[in-house]
Structures are given as C-alpha cells and as structure tokens.
C-alpha cells in the first residue's frame, strides 16, 4: 500500500538575499489513515510544505508523492484533478465564497471537479455532514450571515464532502479558543476517521497536537531537517 503522502529530498527556495526563504525536507512519509500534525514556529514553512505536498507549489528538487503518484511530475491540469478527487482542504481563513450559501460552499468541490457534479448523493452527503457538524440549520445562509464557528464547520464539510483520501488543514483552529479548537479538531478527526481519510494539519496550537497520532516538527534546524515526523513513519 503506497504512502498517503511521501516526500523525499525536497528543496524549495523563494526570494533572494535577506528575504531568501528555503525549505528542505529530506524525507517525510505519512501512511494512509494516519493523522499527522505539522508544527513549527511562524515562517518556518509549514503552509509551504502543505502546498508542496499537494502540488499547489512545485519543489526545486526532490519528489512529492500522493497515494503513490509523483505529484511534482504531473501537469498542472492533472495536479488540479488529483486535488479535486483526492484532497480535501481546510484553509486558515476558511476561504468560503461569499456569494454562495453554506450548502453551495460545501458542494463547491463537487461542482468544479470533473465529473457528475452535485448529484443527489453528494447533496445527501453534504447534508449529513452538515448535520454531524451542527450547521444543518444555517445551510441556506451566505458566509456573511454565519458566525465564525459556523464558517469553520462549513469549511470542514467542504473538505470532506468528496470523501477525499487526504485531508489537508492549514491552521484549522487558528482563531479559536482552546476549547473550541479541541472540538474542531475532534470533529475533523472523527469525520476523517469515518471515511478512513489521512489527515495532515498544520498548527501552532500546542494544545491540540496531542490529539494527532504523529507530529512533524519543522522547528528543528532548518538546514538540517532530516528527521522524520515522530511516529509518522511506519
């Protein structure tokens, strides 16, 4: 069984001189179904790593695989297709579309992905997810009329609706207090577990790291980041 996420000898640079940013990840492997947190101080490249892993960014060197497929070798079109099919994303600012209702936001991946679109089955799943997340009553509202927490849940539902094998979360609890953060993480993890999805979450919230099965720390010596995520490798 291929790894859900596998990174080897990755090197990624941006900018020149004092602004130069470099990310090196000698090796990272996350097995299917594992829930992994990526931690590290601000600016250490946690989000960049996620983007590289999912093919949004391309590395200067090294390889990125998802589900055994070399993402860095795929065309832009294929990478987008792969994300649409296999990856669910929860963004830091939720990135909901303000002109869509909560339900339409949840259904967005179905609508834009190649395929049958927002079928009845997908809609039922969206409603089930919304019910599980406690937002069944606000599905008709647009983001402007939703509370912060409700938006968060909509974003989570959106990430889950296509039953992706990998769920990628970028600071999913960034703006929440500790109690709420715990709830949200629990929700993501339990929903992911229900569909056997792998979860990779970037966070700097140490309070929730404990809920993950593995932790990958980017804070240690950037130039010599050869460690593998604790417990993340088999």
């Amino acid at each position, binding site marked *: 069984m291929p790894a859900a996420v596998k990174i080897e000898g990755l090197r990624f640079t941006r900018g020149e001189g004092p602004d130069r940013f470099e990310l090196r990840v000698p090796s990272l492997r996350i097995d299917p179904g594992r829930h992994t947190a990526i931690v590290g101080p601000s600016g250490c490249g946690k989000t960049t790593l996620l*983007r590289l892993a*999912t093919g*949004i960014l391309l590395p200067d060197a090294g390889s990125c695989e998802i589900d055994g497929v070399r993402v860095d070798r795929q065309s*832009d*079109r294929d990478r*987008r*297709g*792969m*994300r*649409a*099919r296999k*990856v669910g*994303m929860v*963004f830091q600012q939720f*990135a909901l*579309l*303000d*002109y*869509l209702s909560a339900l*339409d936001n949840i259904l*967005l*991946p*179905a*609508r*834009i*992905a*190649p395929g049958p*679109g*927002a079928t009845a089955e997908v809609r039922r799943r969206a409603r089930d997810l919304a019910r599980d997340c406690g937002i069944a009553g606000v599905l008709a509202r*647009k983001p402007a009329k939703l509370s912060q927490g409700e938006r968060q849940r909509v974003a989570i539902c959106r990430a889950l609706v296509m039953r992706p094998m990998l769920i990628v979360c970028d600071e999913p609890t960034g703006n929440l207090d500790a109690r709420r953060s715990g709830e949200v993480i629990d929700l993501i993890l339990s929903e992911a577990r229900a569909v056997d999805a792998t979860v990779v979450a970037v966070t700097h919230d140490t309070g929730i790291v404990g809920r993950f099965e593995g932790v990958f720390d980017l804070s240690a010596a950037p130039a010599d980041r050869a460690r593998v995520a604790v417990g993340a490798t088999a």
Partner: protein
Amino acid sequence: MTGSAYLALRYALHHPLRTGVLAACVAVALALPAGSRAILERFESSLYARARTVPLVVGAKGSRFDLAFSALYFRATDLAPTPYREYAELLDEPSVRAIPVHARFTASGGDVPVVATSIEYLETRGLAPDEGRVFARVGEAVIGSRAAERLGLGVGGWVFSDQRELYDITSPPSVKLDIVGVLGETGTPDDDALIVDLETAWVLEGIAHGHDEAEEIERADLVIGRSEEHVALSGAVVTYQEITDENAASFHLHGPRDNLPLSSILVYPADDKARTIVRTRVDASAAAQAIVPTRVIDDLIAFLLRIRALIDALSAILLLSTLTLIGCIGVLSYRVRAAEIRTLGEIGCARGTVGLMFAFEAGGVLAVAGAVAGVVTLAALGLAEPLMRAGL
C-alpha cells in the same frame, strides 16, 4: 460546465445591482441600433409594400411626395385637384386600368379619411366586406376594419363627414354617411379609411346636392323666380344632409362632370407600351404629372438612410464604449476575485472551469441584455406602428 454556469449565476444574483447595470448598459447599446434599424426597416418595407401596389399615380403638378402620399395614404394636401377629364381620358385608353381617388375629406372629427373612389379601387386592392356589402349609392360607405373598431362602427352605423370650414355657412354641410360594409383587415392604410363612391365626394364638395324638385316647391319664400322653364330657388332651400334611398335619386351635379375634382388617379398599365402612352399623355398636359410611387419612396428612403447611418455611427460608438466598460469591469472583477480564483485552483478547479465561469457570467449578462433589447425593440416596433399610421 453546469457547475461553472451555476457559480456564474450565483455570482450574478449575489450582485444584482452590478449585474443589472451591466445588462442595462449592454441592452441600451444593443437596443438602440437594433430598434432604430428595425423601425426604419419596417417603415421602409411598409412604404415600399404600399408603393408597389400602384405602378403610376397621375395628379396635379406639384410636390411628388404630396401626390404619392395623397394617393397611397390619403393625406390631405395642398395640391390642386385634377379634373375628372384626366380620368375619363385614361378610361378610354385600352390596356390601362385607371382608378379615380378623391381623398380630401375626413369624418368623425378628422379621425378617419374619407376616400372617394370607384368600386374598382376595392377590387384592385382586394378589399372585400367581411360584413355587409359595398356601397350601392351616394351616401353609402364601407369602413376599414381598424377604423370600424376604433369608432365602434358596424353595418347600420353612420358617421358625419367633417365640414371643411366650420364657420363658413356657405361651405358644404357635413353629410351623414351610412356604413353598409366593414372591410376585411389588410394591414394597409385602407383599414383606417372610410371608402365611398366618387359621387359621394362630390356631394361632400357641395358640387352635387339633392333637394325637392324645384317645380314642386310650394313655399313662396323659397322660390325667387319662376318662369315656364326656369325656377330660381332661394339659397334657403335646404339641401339634404342625409341621403336616403328615397332622395338618393334627387342628387345631381351642377356643371359638367369633366371638370369635377379628383385628388389623384391610380393607373395600372397592362404593359410597357400602355405605360409609355400614359406617361406621354400626362407629360403633354400642362397641369398634370405622372409619378412612380416606388421612385418617390426611393428618394424618401435615401433620406432616411442618411439618418440611419448617423444612428448607426452613434450606436457603434455606444457599443464600443459599452464593450470597453464590460472589459474594464471584467479586469477589475478578475482582480477582486483573485483570492477566490486561487482558492478554486487549490481545491482543484481546472483553469478552464474558472474561465468558463467568467464566460458564462458575461454570456448571461449579454443574453439578458439581448433579450431586453429584443423586447424593447419589439415594443418600439409596436409603438412605431400607430405612430407610422398617424404620421403617414
């Protein structure tokens, strides 16, 4: 595909003002040229359709336009009348069908032109009564379908002709015209007219009148003089204003028929030879002219085309500026929505899908604008129809 269309629709509906203004701008830019062209086109084809029905019009010398519009659209003009003689002479011409028209009168307060002509006019124009019959004597009239509807008149109804000089008591009085038939609709100016026999027009002119037999008038105050063979009647002898079956026979002309007035003569030569004969004959006349209605319309249209060219130029500028506006809004919109586009890309939305979304939005706005422009154009045409009828 449906997804991008759906998103485009959602976006457009989320910003109704923006979408509305955009659609309205495009609609105006489309409706102006389309509407003006359509109206002019309709105007033009309606003019030509009418003009083509008459190969030649003979009438008094003067404005060709006046003559054409008097003959085709029954517009009262200042043109001198043409004597009946011209018509009588054309009647003698073999291979020429000539139809006299005297269209100087109106009825019902100027509302309806009274077209005095011969039964051949109805025949030639394919005008047959849907109801009732054609006129069988002086004072009887058939009415066009639209005029009948507008005035609420049917067979058995009547209408008074308009007196031309209301305050001149010596001018011929208005005459009651009995409606004996309602013509089928033809979509031509005939639908708006009251059509009577030529003889009736001469009653309206005061040239023909009816009264009791002079010999039988007993009242001394009405007879100025009486001799063996002559009875002089007072001007106070009341001429009939209402023509009935009983007094119709008493209507008589004063003066020779040859000098009686016509406003125009419609001429249908059977062939080129007959046409040439008519033109030669009329050209030789000092007072008459022969015109080809389609040529007159050609000249009119040439003028209208210049107006259209102007409108077209304005429309082109308007359209161009609207397109620029749409372009600007498109670019701005793309910038404003950059974050959204990035999110969509990260979720896995193909580049084409995003493009399609924008295309659908623009297409939708254009489609709505086009539909609005279409409706506006049709409405304008609908409004133009009565305007045209009133204007002609």
